[in-house]
C-alpha cells in the first residue's frame, strides 16, 4: 500500500513531463525534493514483470 502510494504520487507529481495535465509550476517546485520518490518509481517500473520481486521489495526482503 505504502509503496503503491509513493509510486502514484511520483507519477502524478511529475505528470506534466509524462503527459498528465498537472501544472508544470507544481512539478518544477517539487522535483528537487523528489529524488527518493523517483528512484522508488523507477525501481517499481523495473519490477513490473517480476511480481515476486515486487512483493519481496514491498516486504523489504532480500533474495
Amino acid at each position, binding site marked *: 500500500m505504502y509503496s503503491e502510494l509513493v509510486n502514484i*504520487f511520483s507519477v502524478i*507529481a511529475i505528470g506534466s513531463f509524462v503527459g498528465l*495535465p498537472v501544472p*508544470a*509550476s507544481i512539478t518544477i*517546485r517539487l*522535483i*528537487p*525534493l523528489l529524488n527518493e520518490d523517483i528512484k522508488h518509481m523507477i525501481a517499481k517500473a523495473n519490477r513490473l514483470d517480476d511480481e515476486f520481486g515486487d512483493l519481496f521489495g514491498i516486504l523489504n526482503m532480500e533474495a
Partner: protein
Amino acid sequence: MLLSSKEGLSRVILVTGKGGVGKTTFSALLSLAIAPYEKDVRVVSIDPSHHLGDVLETELSHEERKILDNLRAAELNMDILVENYLRKESEFLKRTYKATSALNLEKFFDVLKYAPGIEEEAVAEHLFSYFKEDVVTIVDTPPTGPTLRILSFPWIQEMWLQKLIELRAKIVGLKESIDSIKMGKKVEIDDKILYELLKMREEVSTKINLLRDSKEFGVFVVTIPERLPLLDMERLIVELKKKMVKIIGIVLNKYNESRDRDVLERIRSQYQGIPIVLIPSHDSSNIIGKERLLHLLREVKVIE
C-alpha cells in the same frame, strides 16, 4: 466617468467576451474614460491577435507606450511572456541541478516551453504582477475560452495541490506507522514534500483571494445583441459567479434602441444589480483613434 461606482474601480480590470463583440474597442474606451479620474492607467492586450494599437491608432508593442500623460498601452507578446516565465523557472531548476551545466545539459530544460498549458501559466503569472502596482490596469483579452483558462489557472492549481496534499498526507501517515512499528516507539516524519505542497497552496489561496477582492479585481463582460454572443455571456457569467469574481458590468455593444429593447430588458431582469453599459450601434471600422473613441464615449449610456 463611465461607471460612477460607489466602490471605485478595481485595480485590475479584465474585459472579456466572445470573439468580435468589441472587447478591444471597449477596453480603449474605458481607458480613455477613466484616465481623467485616475492617477495612472494602463491598457494592455493579451489577445495574440492584437488590435488595441489599431483601435488607438498607435503602433504598440510588448513595451508600454504613452498614450496620454497618465495612460500607457501595450500589446503583450506571448513568446516573451513564456520566455520570461520559463527563465525564472529554469534558473530555479538549473540552480538545483548545478551539475547539469557542466555537462551542458541545461538546454534540455528549455523544452519546458512546450509543456502543455505553459502559456496560460505565464500569462496568469504576468497578470498577478499588476496587483503589486498602484496603477489601474485594463486587460483586453482573447475570446472567452482561452480567457477562462487563464483566469481558472489558480483554481486548477489549487485543485491539483489539494489532491497531492491528500495523497502525500496518507503516505506520511503510513510511513509514520511503519517506522513506529520498526522502531518500537512513535515516530513523526518531517516531510519536505508535504511542507512544500502546503506552502504552494497558501500562495495559490492568496492569489484566489486577490481575484475575489473587488477592490483588486473585476470583470467587464462584453456582448452584442445576437444569439450566440448572448449565450456566451450567460455561460461566462455563470463561471465568474462560481469563482466569486466581481462582475463590474455587462457591456451591450452595438445596441440599437428600437431593435434591441427586448434584449436589454431580458439582461436587466436576469442580472439585477449588475450595471449595464450601452454602446450604440456603430461602424466599428470607423472607430479608430482617440478622437473618434472620445466621440463614441459621449454616446455611451450606463444603466446602474
